[in-house]
């Protein structure tokens, strides 16, 4: 079975990367192939990384409140590139009122502060697309 490929990205101007890095390590320790983009990625850069890396999952870490702008753009670009089946999850500080909006646009998992790493691992394993055998 091939490994699940995950792109972990920090969009926007924020540099607080503790969460992104901890979760990147946890996914790697759980047997996934993790590509961490580093800081300050535009939606275009993130989608292009997903394309290049043949990612099954994109994990966005957003703490700054910019999710209402960043997520729609990422989803739109994914559709434009025919990457609709890439699982998109968001971790960070997301006010309750914004959660339905993100879900509607196709963000599958939203993980708030205090979420156990194991829960995120299992969510990804349970919701990722089946990889086609090449």
């Amino acid at each position, binding site marked *: 079975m091939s490994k699940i490929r995950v792109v972990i990205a920090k969009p926007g101007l924020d540099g607080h990367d503790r969460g992104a890095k*901890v979760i990147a390590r946890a996914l790697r320790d759980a047997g996934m192939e993790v590509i961490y983009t580093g800081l300050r990625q535009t939606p275009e850069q993130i989608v292009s990384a997903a394309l290049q890396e043949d990612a099954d999952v994109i994990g966005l870490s957003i703490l700054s409140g910019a999710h209402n702008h960043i997520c729609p753009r990422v989803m739109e670009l994914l559709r434009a590139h025919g990457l609709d089946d890439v699982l998109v999850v968001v971790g960070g500080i997301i006010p309750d009122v914004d959660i339905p909006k993100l879900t509607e646009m196709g963000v599958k998992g939203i993980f708030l502060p205090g979420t156990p790493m194991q829960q995120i691992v299992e969510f990804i394993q349970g919701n990722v697309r089946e990889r086609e055998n090449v």
Partner: protein
Amino acid sequence: MSSDAKETPARPRERAEVFRTISGRPIERVYRGPGPVDSAGARPQDAQDPGTFPYTRGIHANGYRGKLWTMRQFAGFGTPEETNARYRHLLAAGGTGLSVAFDLPTLMGRDPDHELSLGEVGKCGVSVVSLADMETLFAGIPLGQVTTSMTINSPAAMVFAMYLVVAQRQGVPWTALSGTIQNDILKEFIAQKEYIYPPRPSMRLITDTFAFCAREVPRWNSISVSGYHIREAGATAAQELAFTLRDGIEYVQYGIDAGLDVDEFAPRMSFFFNAHSDFFEEIAKYRAARAIWAEVMRTRFGARSERSWKLRFHSQTAGVSLTAQQPYNNVVRTALQALSAVLGGTNSLHTNSLDEALALPTEEAATLALRTQQIIAHETGVAGLADPFGGSYFLEALTFDLTRETYAYFDRIDALGGMVAAIEEGFPQREVAESAYRFQRAVERKEQVIVGVNDFVATDDPAVRILYIDDAATDTQMTRLAEVKARRDPAEVARALHAMRRAAQGTDNLMPPILEAVRAYATLGEMCDALRDVWGEWEEQAII
């Protein structure tokens, strides 16, 4: 006596195999005298009184009897008008200093119309684009009578210049200004990652502000060497202490290398530590910090002024310890953390609000956080004497151990060629990431209990009202940016930005051309771009 009694008695059953501090430090069952002895055979805990070298017990002989710590609440959101109103409220409620939180575009030196500013304007702090915004931010606040701390790093020189020009226009002489710019780029590379330029030119910007302040704004703290963010990123108490003080050493060395006299700028250096949850370890950390800094300044740098030896610090309770679950628990966490900072002799303090794992604080939550400090100051009695825990076997042992571990880190970083070189090599970044992961695993295994998160979980969390920041600030700030650009003299702006570029290529102090650009209403993005043109931008090697 029976022979049985000679055998080691069976250890009574305890709740854990090993008891540890939140940093993972094992602690003994009980601590006894006479306490640790250093390499010279001395018992450091007997060394001195509060107010005497090396200031383990505090920089003031009478503790807080003369003056309480400054209650300084960090605040900023949305437009300059909105934040100005919050400041007036905090001052009216008995706050004694201002502390400005800027939004991410400001922290990163980007104007609101830049691609990366999308959705970030006014979100995590107040948006300041040009001198016009700074004038609004401090409207009606007499800058000669308040002290202002500004959390700004890469563009610190530019934002400081804006403040200086506002003061000038209020008729306040620079010699009467008092406050702090954070101006600590090294911890940005290590932890918070809000950097623009590569480390070496960034250091030059900082030594330029040291020289300028020493000459022109003598009561201003030209840097706040910060461990807060290093701790928030996952460091242990010992790592926070060691990396922060080693950063301080690096700044002093660069200042001296730039031709400054150590006693000219070192007295205006201040520090900023985290007030985390492990009560005794935190108190020990502050005591160790003072003693190490005094020793370093006197022996490593030969400082002669007592004011250079004395470490003054701000502290803030640990944002990372706050939980989104059962948010009222955060009031209790914050109170205990604040108490440890006071018992450790903090010179100023910010207490976090109960809703900060969810959003920026509401005015109500921010007021409660300030009240927490007032209760500690006026009701608990702890502010009536200096260093109440001095002589505690446990606390003295912790102070001793943290000191030893800090010097061991100094040796490793010195061996790498100093902190700038260590950062370029990724050393402190790796150490912090490692500790962060270790902590998270301890939480997952429940070796570290977080009430309401991995134990004592409730299904019916009370909802708290949060401050929801919409995108109105973006529109306001875009409009204002256009107005400023329409009103100013473009030739004057171009000339000033050119002068900045020229100074950056040479060795002249950058503050005078920056002040000129500010007066011409150059935007922060334009000023930062002028230096980007010369120095380029830093991109870190992402380490996970």
